[in-house]
């Protein structure tokens, strides 16, 4: 399938934005007291989020996990509101209650993000159920890691989605690590996609560092799902270039492995391809990079200048109206 140039441009733009956003976070989270909590980045995995979201319609939903920055930015979330939330500021997309780990952006149909590993799977099935119930043509995408594919929730979710032929795409971002465990240390299955046979549903493996390939595979699975053909399990093979979180010294990740995968950077790959095909000029690329840097600078400024929430606000939003 030929991927349109404007789609490639869209993917490149969102990958660049994510990379710039997280490059900033990498630095910021080192500064004592600036950003609360863990800092979990998707550096090197951007093609998954960008490829997937480029294949989606606005009305499609995504349910994300702890490694969500790329997913949400690719779906169109406002970097300012995200950054302010990561800082814990009142202007954050979740008023400082969620921080980086459970960013919810209903405006772009990412109504909730869960950091409970595997927790997104049953929820995505529920969202897809609502879509089918209302006879919509929209679909739901659940993004989760290879580690999450070992949780019981994975199994229950895929079985139910298959049974009811729900319009959901299970996108496993296999970055070869779950915490400190290498993929082959947490399961003997050669590929997460092999598990599709157990439900059954189509199981597809794609190069997760190749945004257009992810886009194409997602588009196909989306088509199937939106037309009543049921769910697909799509495994995107990629690599976690940084630690599980920024506090992780990566002592268990071979240096050569990291170096190898850095060469396979999904952004460089797409840039190169677009430059070669002549659908992107060096100047345009520089402009894109500059745009994303600017957007991130603005987001950081916004977050820095935003006020902290007042302690009374801690009591708000537990219930729809206070008890």
């Amino acid at each position, binding site marked *: 399938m030929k991927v349109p140039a404007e789609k490639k441009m869209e993917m490149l733009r969102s990958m660049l934005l994510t990379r710039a956003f997280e490059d900033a976070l990498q630095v910021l989270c080192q500064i004592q007291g600036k950003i609360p909590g863990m800092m979990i980045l998707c550096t090197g995995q951007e093609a998954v989020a960008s490829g997937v979201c480029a294949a989606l319609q606005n009305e499609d939903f995504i349910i994300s996990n702890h490694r969500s920055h790329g997913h949400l930015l690719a779906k169109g979330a406002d970097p300012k509101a995200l950054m302010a939330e990561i800082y814990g500021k009142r202007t954050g*997309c979740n008023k400082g209650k*969620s921080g980086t780990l*459970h960013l*919810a952006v209903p405006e772009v149909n990412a*109504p909730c993000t869960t950091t409970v590993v595997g927790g997104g799977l049953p929820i995505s099935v529920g969202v897809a159920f*609502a879509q089918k119930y209302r006879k919509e043509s929209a679909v739901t995408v659940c993004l989760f890691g290879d580690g999450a594919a070992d949780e019981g929730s994975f199994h*229950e979710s895929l079985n139910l989605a298959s049974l*009811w032929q729900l319009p959901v795409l299970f996108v496993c971002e296999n970055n070869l690590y779950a915490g400190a465990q290498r993929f082959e240390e947490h399961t003997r299955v050669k590929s997460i996609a092999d598990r599709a046979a157990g439900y059954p549903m189509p199981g597809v493996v794609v190069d997760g560092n190749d945004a257009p390939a992810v886009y194409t595979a997602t588009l196909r699975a989306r088509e199937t799902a939106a037309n009543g053909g049921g769910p697909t399990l799509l495994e995107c093979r990629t690599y976690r270039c940084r630690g599980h979180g920024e506090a992780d010294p990566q002592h268990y990740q071979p240096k050569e492995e990291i170096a190898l995968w850095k060469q396979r950077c999904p952004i460089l790959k797409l840039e190169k391809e677009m430059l070669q095909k002549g659908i992107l000029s060096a100047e345009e690329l520089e402009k894109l990079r500059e745009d994303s840097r600017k957007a991130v600078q603005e987001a950081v400024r916004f977050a820095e200048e935003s006020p902290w929430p007042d302690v009374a606000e801690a009591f708000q939003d537990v219930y729809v109206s206070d008890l």
Partner: protein
Amino acid sequence: MQQLGMGQAVQQALREEMLRDPNVFLAGEGVGVSIHFNPYLPTHGLLEEFGPERVKDTPVSEQAIAGLAVGASVAGLRPVVEIMFNPFFTLASDMIVNHAAKLRYLSGGKSTFPLVVRIKTGAGFGAGCQHSHNLEAWVAHSPGLKVVMPSSPADAKGLLKSAIRDENPVVFLEDMTLYFMPGPVPQEEYLTPIGKAEVKREGTHVTVVAWSKMVGVALKAASQLAEEGIDVEVVDLRSLVPLDKETLLGSVRKTGRLVVLHEATRTGGFAGEICAVVMEEVFWNLKAPFRRVTGPDIPVPVSPPLERFYIPDEEKLKAAIREII
């Protein structure tokens, strides 16, 4: 007035709400085709009436059932899902406690999760501790959830209808013994507000606080003690969260004495919460120490004499009341 068991009352509530709002649907193990064929049970006949699009039998997968509710509710539907027996709440508890209850807060109030989880509860049918284990105290200790435990068919109907219309996640616990104890249920449409306790019997000497099946035990004990000249006030909480402190505290302020009665095991049971709240607020009115009458701190045993012993009864309650009068 119609006389219904609590299962039938729940059935009516479900039927009326499904007729009213096309976004309401049911899901759970055996909510459509059941291994029982019994009109007294809550979802009997609803599959036939509303069809398989709205009455969804699920695989044996409690996490998926609860997650279905979380996802469908945030996407705009009004799921009413069933967890077959209270001990299996454990299997759904990540979805209910870490997700249904917290995701609204985590969204900064942007997302809503209007869902109901119905759970069958209560000992007394010889099935043992993996089927009988009252865990309402767990749910009540989970901010973000409402917790409803009706004591009568009429309340069950009115409260469940309110729960379905509530914008928040509600856990609705039905004691199975009550399915088979008929009571009057108004024919006309009504809602019972969640968060209002009911004084089931006025009295002056002692306040007994109970909920669910235990309200009946309290009323029985109260009328027996009346013959001895002990005047018992019985407060039916109806919901643990929100807790109707006004009614609760008002009653104890008046009587100066408190006994809390529940079927759940004692240590860590919700009676502790009631005692603490009352103690904090009306200490100076108190005339005697509190008493708790509860299931003992053991798993529910199967053998009939042991299971009977496990479930608090009016004798135990009367003894406790007499201790502090």
